[in-house]
């Protein structure tokens, strides 16, 4: 057991993957000497060299496009997109090439490319540094989309993403980078499969569904709700595409109520997909409509306002209360 921050857990996970397989490469802006702006790749270039930890020109489409080419040559690139709001120059390569080339090749091509994206707000940043673009990618067939929420999962999931023969969009909750927890780095026995979610707190009255940075917020809300006599189950989805449907449906059928929480705007957000699927599959078990808590239909606001934009404990509890109002 080691006590690791989430960023260090990712670092250790990548280090392990690079030790295990010489084809694993790290690519991105400032990932080498600097170790990334969040230091997630700290020390890797020093230990694995410039050929395996590549400081790239400042061009996101170039990062993904050349990563595809390296994957075609048999490499397993792990790309860092410096911030969520900078992924859009790479969106063309991700959506038109990375996601579609394997099917285009009738299975002859596999693209084991990981695209790491620090996501979400809460760090007082300027525009384009606090976004949650996951729904753009869950809408794109051919990509796996996952989000880690804690150091242990971060350590395991980054390795699983690297091992996957499919392209994986890997969201990292940047405001949780510095949070620490115990991580068992000695074995993989405890790892949950990459396409599975997990109930992180059992409950009986309502299901809170979250991923990435909102898992912690939901756990805090569940603790607070317990004081009001409500038993709240919290699910950490971990994987958004594919979605762990049995986990979600089994929980909601037991509790009869579901609240989805994410930082991304509610409108056309991933919560809409969850609400629709839950309604289809749990209709006769529902005591209330599926409620959603998330960002507003505004661009991400200036940081002085982000506490109003981001779901917090009170807004989650408010939604839980509303779920009992039907």
């Amino acid at each position, binding site marked *: 057991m080691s006590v690791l921050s989430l960023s260090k857990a990712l670092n250790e996970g990548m280090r392990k993957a690079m030790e295990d397989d010489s084809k694993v490469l790290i690519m991105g802006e400032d990932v080498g000497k600097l170790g990334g702006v969040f230091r997630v790749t700290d020390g890797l270039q020093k230990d694995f060299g410039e*050929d395996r930890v590549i400081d*790239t*020109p400042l*061009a996101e*489409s*170039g990062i*993904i*496009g*050349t*990563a*595809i*080419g*390296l*994957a*075609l*040559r*048999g*490499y397993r690139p792990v790309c860092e997109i410096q911030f969520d709001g900078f992924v859009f*120059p790479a969106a*063309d*390569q991700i959506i*038109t*090439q990375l996601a*579609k*080339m*394997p*099917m*285009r*090749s*009738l*299975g*002859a*091509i*596999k693209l084991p490319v990981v695209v790491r994206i620090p996501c979400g707000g809460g760090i007082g940043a300027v525009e384009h540094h606090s976004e949650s673009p996951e729904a753009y990618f869950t809408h794109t*067939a*051919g990509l*796996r989309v996952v989000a880690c929420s804690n150091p242990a999962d971060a350590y395991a999931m980054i390795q699983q993403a690297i091992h*996957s*023969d*499919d392209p994986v969009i890997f969201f990292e909750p940047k405001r949780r980078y510095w949070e620490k927890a115990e991580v068992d780095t000695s074995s993989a026995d405890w790892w949950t499969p990459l*396409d599975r979610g997990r109930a992180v707190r059992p409950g009986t009255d309502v299901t809170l569904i979250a991923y990435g940075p909102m898992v912690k917020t939901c756990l805090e809300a569940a603790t607070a709700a317990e004081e009001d006599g409500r038993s709240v189950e919290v699910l950490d989805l971990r994987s958004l*595409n*594919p*979605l*762990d*449907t049995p986990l979600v449906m089994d929980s909601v059928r037991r509790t009869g109520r579901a609240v989805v929480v994410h930082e991304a705007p509610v409108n056309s957000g991933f919560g809409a997909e969850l609400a629709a699927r839950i309604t289809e599959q749990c209709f006769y078990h529902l005591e209330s409509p599926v409620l959603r808590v998330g960002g507003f239909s505004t661009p991400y606001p200036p940081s002085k306002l982000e506490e109003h934009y981001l779901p917090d404990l009170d807004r989650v509890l408010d939604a839980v209360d509303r779920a009992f109002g039907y």
Partner: protein
Amino acid sequence: MTLEAPRGAEAPPELVQLLTPEGERVEHPDYDIDLKPEEIRSLYRDLVLVRRIDLEAVALQRQGELGIWASLLGQEAAQIGSGRALTDADMAFPTYREHGVAWCRDVDPVKLLGLFRGVNHGGWDPKEHNFHLYTIVIGSQTLHAVGYAMGIQRDDATAATIAYFGDGATSQGDVNESFIWASVFNAPIVFFCQNNQWAISEPLEKQSRIPLYRRASGFGFPGIRVDGNDVFACLAVTRKALADARSGQGPTMIEAFTYRMGAHTTTDDPTRYRVASELEAWKLKDPIERVKAYLFKNELADQAFFDTVEGEADQLGADLRRRCLAMPDPRPLDMFDHVYAEPHALIDEERAQYAAYLEGFES
């Protein structure tokens, strides 16, 4: 404001040419090539056969057997010259018009038809031919080619990549990024730009105020303009550039100055945007006629040879037609295959649901 840029039938002075449109051999101080008679006859055969593949595909489209076709007419020399410069270990990244390069990489021509017929999005294994799948989004493949070249560097292999693209693509961000990456990493790559003068309806002056090959110098590697209708020159220039790339001397950009004699695709109508006299001028520079004239004049081939090649072309066209018509349609559930390499719950669920739905119509 109208900006004048070199275009049309006037050959600019920078052009590397080894065989004139009249079939005369000319010398070039930097590029020369020593071709045996059988090699020249073989190049001629390639040119004729790929033109026939193209002609047959256009006909198949006109008869409703293909949804669309992107003709290479006029660009045969650029594609055969560069394609024949490749070694087996080199890797080519095409656009959707590189039927001639595909021929050089031994891709069965019928496999090119799959995506145009709508039975698949790309029907060959790139690793088997070292010829990547056709890429439809303009310029995307140039980055893949650079990444692949970076892989070659990491493998310490003796090989190069060649990235094909057109004049329009030079305006794309990805192409410019690929130039930067190739330059910074000194990647073993040749950028082979077929400047066929037209990006659908837009002439070259909508893309550039300078000759395209001069772009390279700004990125820090050499650019060369070659007569794209001269198969000797295209072969010589590409061979040199590939050899440079393989020996660690980094990228080269080749601008093959050619002409799209047909429409952009079979859905296009060039009479709306260009004058007929332009095509007539370029017909005098036909890439095949000049090789034929050279072979004749120098008595390197007789009529029997040309008749044999024609016969082979007829057979190839007929065979392509027959096999195109015999190409099986995909089955409905095939669309769920190969979306992911590993099992995926949502795909499995949707496949099963749609299979059950389809079964409802049986009985």
